[in-house]
């Protein structure tokens, strides 16, 4: 096996590929890519909002994510061999999906059919709070509520997603939102 690179300093290599990089460097790139995904999505929203207003931007955002949310969970399950149709399966997919590395969250499994996800210091909510226009109402309390359901239903349409806590957050609190996932049998 060829020696793995920790970076790409040194001369040009016509055959360079990220597959030559060490595990540690791949981990750092993965975190960067997770951030790229969040940034590209956010930049699109803001660009459309500036050009056409928040209603159009929100409408486009909803359309994009109603398509992408289920795809995200399905692709994650395929890639990491995560199989099943219970809450445990869904929570595993939520731990690994491309967004995970950007968000600080706690995932608790009560039993195979019942669990909680809690998000702390969400960078999207922080940006919306700084902006001060109250957009968290549509993004977090409307769209995210629908999307958590779409994502859970990609594993099993019978999983029920309930927001236990939504923005606005209390002053000084790092808790942004909390969700209960339950499958009634």
């Amino acid at each position, binding site marked *: 096996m060829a020696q*793995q690179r920790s*970076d*790409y*300093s040194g*001369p*040009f290599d*016509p055959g*360079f*590929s*990220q*597959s030559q*990089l*060490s*595990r540690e*460097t*791949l*981990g*750092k*790139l*993965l975190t*960067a*890519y*997770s951030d*790229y*995904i969040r*940034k*590209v*999505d956010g*930049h*699109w929203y803001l*660009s*459309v909002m500036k*050009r*056409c207003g928040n209603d*159009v931007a929100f*409408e*486009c955002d909803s*359309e*994009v994510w109603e*398509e*992408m949310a289920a*795809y*995200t969970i399905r*692709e994650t399950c395929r*890639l*990491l*061999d*995560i*199989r099943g149709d219970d809450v*445990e399966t869904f*929570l*595993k997919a939520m*731990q*690994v999906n*491309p967004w*995970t*590395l950007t968000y600080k969250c706690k*995932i*608790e*499994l009560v039993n195979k059919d019942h669990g909680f996800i809690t998000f702390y210091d969400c960078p999207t909510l922080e940006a919306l709070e700084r902006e001060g226009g109250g957009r968290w109402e549509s993004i977090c309390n409307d769209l995210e509520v629908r999307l958590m359901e779409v994502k859970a239903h990609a594993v099993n349409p019978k999983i029920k997603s309930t927001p236990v806590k939504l923005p606005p957050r209390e002053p000084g609190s790092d808790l942004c939102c909390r969700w209960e996932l339950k499958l009634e049998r």
Partner: protein
Amino acid sequence: MSRLLKDYSGPFDPKFSHDMLERETLLAILKENSDYLRKLDGQWYVTVMRACGNDVAFECDVRIWEKFILYELKNTTRLLNIYGDDVATVVKAMQATPWMWIHDRTFELVNSNHAIITYRNCPTQVYIEKEGSDRYKQICHVLERKLFEMTAHYFNPRIKVTALKLPPREKGSKVSCQWEYKLES
């Protein structure tokens, strides 16, 4: 150190993190996330195009990528320790961006101040060809030219970027576009 995981089959682990995955799996996720980023960006473009027309979508696309390309270059060069001000440095950075997994490209370095980059079967071009529109005129002739120039000028504003071949491609040809990077001393 405990054994690294090939995938995330098996039971839920409340302490799961990407650090527990083996190198090949991290590489597979990185590749998938690169495609995910492309898909998300494309989904936004097409959604805005449907809602507001192609001119608005293109305008937003330009605004986003003018910002994002610089952020991406800053990250890539920092993470992979790629520094310099010649064409070889530009080419090294381009080899290492998230897009390396999506594009079939060859980098010919004639010398450290002269290179030819050729893209084949570019997925964006293939999509636009299938669509049957002439959107390649904006995307490839205007935006991509600008982004290639911005990439070169990030390292050295004196590097000249020339398009040797641009869409539409000749029937049966795999070549989507070809660029020359040159730094005159």
